[in-house]
Structure formats: C-alpha cells, structure tokens
C-alpha cells in the first residue's frame, strides 16, 4: 500500500490566538478507512477541510498521491467531501445533484446518466432520482450526498461527521452500510466524528485529536486497550480512574496503592516508587468475584447503583474510601447468573494486571 495523503507539519492559525490545527503530521494509506476523533473544537474539521482545499494551512505541506496540493483549490483536487449537513443543492433533483460533479468533467449525457444510475443503485436510492433533496429523509439525503461524492471516483473521500444528523438506530445501520461501501469501492475514506463507537466500529485506524494536535493514533483495538493518556482513555469508552501512589516497580510489574486497596499493573515503562499516579481500568474488564474465588487484584466495596442498559448491567461499586468503580457485565445468559445484587450488598471485584493502565500524575476526568 502506498501513502495517498501525506500531511507534513500542518498548522492552521485562524489568528495568533485561535489555533485550529497545531503541527500535525499524518499519513494515510491508499484504501484505508481513517477516522479523526475528538471532542468539539479540537480541530478535526479544520484538518479535513485543509485536505479538501477549503482552508489553506498556515504552515506545512499537503501531498495527495505524491503531488503537492497545498495551494490547489478544491476543484483541482481529486478528493471529494461529504458534508455534515449534506450540502445537497436544493434547486436540483437528486439525479442532478449526483450528476453535477460529472457534468464538469465533460462527460456525455448518456455516460452521466449511467454513472448516476449506478451510484444511486449503490446507495439503494435509484427510485428517488427525480425527487428534490427536501423530499427525502435525513438518512436518504445522507446517502445521496455519498453517491454524489463517490460518482466522481475520487482517490479520497472526506466525510465530516456524516452521520451526526441521524437518529441512533439509523446511524448504527448507516455505519455498517458505509463500511460495506468502503470495502466495495476501495476508495480511501477519511472521516471526522466525535462519536467514539462510530470511530471504533467503522475505521481501520483512529486518530484521536486533542486541542489541534494528535493525541494518539492506531487501530481501534489498540487505542481501546492501550490508551496513551488519560485523555484518550476517557475519551474512548468509559474508564474507572483511581488515584494512587507507586509502592514499587519491578520490571514491567508495578504495585500501586489506591484509596480502597492495592493494584498491580503491567506497565510499559518503569515507574518511580512513591510517585503519584492514576490507575485506570475499563468497567467491562472489572469482574465480580464469586464467593471464595480469589484473584490478583481484589477490590472490596458495596453496590451503590444498578444501571440497566439493555445489553447488560452496570454496577457502581463504592470502595472503602468512597470512590466508585463501575463494572459492566453482559449477562450472556440471565438464568445462568446469580440474581442482580441488591443495593448495599458487599462485593469483591477483580481486574487483571494487564488490564490496568497507569498514568503518571493526578487525573481529573
């Protein structure tokens, strides 16, 4: 695979104080599905828009398929964008919208019609060709916007929060559909989202951004299992943060003293004994210990809250020092489980050392 997009030290300063993107370098491989993930205002859209040519960087170079396009206007770049609110032309029919980008290429009427037809087939909306965008539902508009971009057979498809205007159910459905589409057309997708699940479900690689910079990038699973910072840990999925102190650290194994007990953890780099750290773990990696069962890291507490969410149960367990630890369980088979513990019941929790993240310093999530 060759690099299709190369960003080299890209910055965008809207003004001396407003910095949209801060010295970002990123390479996207041909055919990849890359997601830019981050909270509102972190510069995702700005970065995407610079790739599309809608903003010019104040620093750095953008290369598309080895060609420097830093100063090319959008209409000279072989990338296409799907806008957040779709940006369908209200004065054109669906067919005209999709065909719009082909007209400029100088294709014949017949050829355009065929391509529009194919693109609309691809998104399953061929019967809507004569309607106006306003006559379609949100999900349908979204797909038309996709068709309009894809029909031009760009090298890269840019998507700015393409699903954020859809409702939960439809969004989920579209996530799958878009992933399939990506596989079918083989175009490189670069998508912006602030929805963690969306990023994790859809992409080959996730780029987590924080205040204009890249906080971490990697495969979804990598990010989830090995967040590089509390920011990433907290932003992707839920994390229990437990402040503590390092008691000792031998090799890759560290002993941490936390308010409600002790934890051992597998760490990448050695920690200084006595330093303040924060231990973190995912609720679903915390399991309830059965009576008499033992484990390496055991925490004791009482059930403070039970939250039911369809897929499973989340228990909030209050430890001795008052801090709360959440634990999720899927209940693969309700009948096989002991009944849901009542509020106030004492429990023992366990988490494997390799499932404990340790971050230096204190963390206020």
């Amino acid at each position, binding site marked *: 695979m060759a690099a299709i997009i190369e960003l080299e030290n890209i910055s965008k*300063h809207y003004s001396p104080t407003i910095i949209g993107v801060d010295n970002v370098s990123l390479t996207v491989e041909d055919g990849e599905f890359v997601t830019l993930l981050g909270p509102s205002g972190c510069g995702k859209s700005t970065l995407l828009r610079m790739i599309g040519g809608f903003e*010019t960087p*104040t*620093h750095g170079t953008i290369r598309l398929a080895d060609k420097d396009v*830093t*100063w*090319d206007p959008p209409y*000279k770049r072989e990338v296409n964008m799907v806008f957040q609110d779709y940006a369908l032309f209200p004065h054109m029919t669906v067919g005209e919208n999709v065909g719009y980008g082909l007209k400029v290429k100088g294709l014949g009427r017949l050829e355009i019609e065929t391509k529009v037809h194919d693109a609309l087939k691809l998104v399953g909306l061929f019967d809507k060709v004569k309607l106006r965008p306003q006559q379609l539902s949100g999900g349908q508009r979204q797909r038309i916007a996709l068709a309009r971009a894809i029909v031009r057979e760009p090298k890269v498809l840019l998507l700015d929060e393409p699903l954020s205007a859809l409702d939960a159910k439809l969004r989920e459905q579209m996530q799958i559909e878009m992933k399939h589409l990506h596989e079918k057309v083989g175009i490189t997708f670069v998508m912006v989202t602030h929805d963690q699940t969306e990023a994790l479900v859809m992409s080959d690689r996730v780029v987590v951004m924080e205040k204009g910079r890249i906080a971490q990038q990697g495969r979804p699973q990598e990010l989830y299992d090995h967040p590089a910072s509390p920011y990433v840990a907290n932003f992707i999925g839920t994390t229990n943060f437990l402040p503590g102190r390092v008691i000792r650290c031998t090799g890759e194994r560290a002993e941490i003293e936390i308010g409600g007990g002790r934890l051992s953890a597998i760490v990448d780099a050695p920690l200084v004994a006595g330093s303040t750290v924060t231990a973190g773990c995912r609720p679903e990696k915390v399991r309830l210990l059965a009576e008499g069962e033992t484990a390496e890291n055991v925490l004791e507490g009482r059930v403070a809250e039970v939250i039911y969410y369809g897929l499973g149960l989340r228990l909030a367990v209050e430890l001795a020092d008052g801090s709360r630890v959440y634990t999720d369980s899927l209940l693969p088979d309700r009948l096989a489980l002991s009944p849901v513990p009542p509020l106030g019941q004492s429990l023992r929790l366990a988490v494997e050392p390799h499932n404990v993240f340790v971050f230096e310093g204190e963390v206020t999530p």
Partner: protein
Amino acid sequence: MAQSPNRAPGLVSRYGADTAFMTFVAALMAFLYIPIWVLIAFSFNDSRSLTWPLSGFTLDWYVKLASNGDLLAAIRNSFYVATGATILTLCVGVPAALALHKVNFPGKTVFRRLILLPITLPGIVTGISMLNMFKLIGFPLSLETVILGHATALLGVVVTQVYARLQRLPKSLEEAAFDLGASPWRSFVDITLPNIRTAIVGAGMLSFVLSFDEIPVTFFLTGRDNTLPMYIYSTLRRGVTPEINAVGTIIVLLSLVLIVVSVVSTRDTKQK
C-alpha cells in the same frame, strides 16, 4: 508564519478578482455618495444658483433657514406626520404580523397579499384611491389624512419586518412561557415583545424616515399644510435655493447620527 503568496499560483487570480471587486465597490460608493457631497457642497456655496462650479463659501443659507417660517413649519409638519404615521402603522402592523404568524383563518393568503400590497403599489395609486374616498365621504384633507395615507402605505414595511422576526423566534419560547404559568397576554409582554423589540424599533425607524420623505401619497392627500418634501417640491417651482441643500445637509447629519445609534443599539442587543 506569514504565508508567502508566491508559493500559491492559484491565489494570483484571486487577488486579481479581489482588486476588480474593490474597484467596483469603490465606484459604486462614489456613485452613491458623490451626489450627496455635491448636495452638501452647495449648501455652503455663496451663489443662489445651483449650477457648477462653486463660487465661494458662506453659511448664509443656514442662517436663512433658521428664519424661514414656512420651511420650519414644513419641517414641523413632517415630524408630526412621520410620528403619527409611524405610531399608527405600528399599532396596525404589529397585530397584523402577529395574526399572520399565529392565527390561522380563512383568506389568510389574501389578507397577506393585501397588507403587503402597498409596498410595491406606487404611492400614486394609494394616494389617489384614498383621495377618491375622502372626496366621496366629504372628509376634508389635512395632515391627518396624510397620516392615514402614510400609515396605509407603510403598513407592509412594518408587517414584513416584524413578521420576519417572529418567524425566526422559536415557537417554543412562547410555549415555555405558557408552560411556566404565563397567560397569553403576559407571555406576549414578557417574552414575545422583548424579542421582537429591535424589529419593531427598526421598522418604526424605517417607517418614520419613509414617511418623512414621502411625496406621492402626500401630494394627493395633504390639505393646505406642507410637509418638508412637499415644501421642497413647491420651491422647485420657484427655483430651489441652497437653503434646501442646507436642510438636506442637516438631514444627512441627523440620519448619520440615527444610523450610528441604530447600529450601536443593535450591536448591544447582540451582545446580550
């Protein structure tokens, strides 16, 4: 950190276009403001005649203006008419906008069309039709008939502006007020009114200006009293003197003040 334009061949044409646009805008501004400067310049010209070139500087026209009873009376009348017409047209236009916005009734489209008609209808038709009516019912012409005429002609201005604002006001605001126990009247006063206030003030100001400067309707509906534009119109018959330019200059200054005030006041509400 500054970007170097020479790296960006695409930007050259953009700068070219910008220059062309700038030139155009400057020319348009000249087109709009040279006449006004000419107008002002002549108010300080020491010749009675309004022909080019200027001959010398004087403030005489301002002095004369201050002692021209008819002119001052005309200005007073214009203020009276504009104030009356503005108040009336607001009293009718705001309810009309509210009705258009909220109430559904048969014939609503006709109602809308009718109420907006005078904006596009030449003033002469409004003036004549009302003149015919006053003549038929034997109602003597006076400044008050002018006020009625102006209020009718300007109704559409108020309705469009207030209606546009109402449309932008989320319906949920008023519902929230109901929900919090406010009666319809109370929620109108507490919620709707403050939120359309700037539109009402804006429409009122525009109506005032338009009424102050109105000719066609006034032409047909005034009795023996002159408004300022009618006075100017009648002096055109005898020959305009720079006194009128002096009035114009004062109007320009006043409107400048008003414009600044309105800009500042709308900016204030934005900050809130």
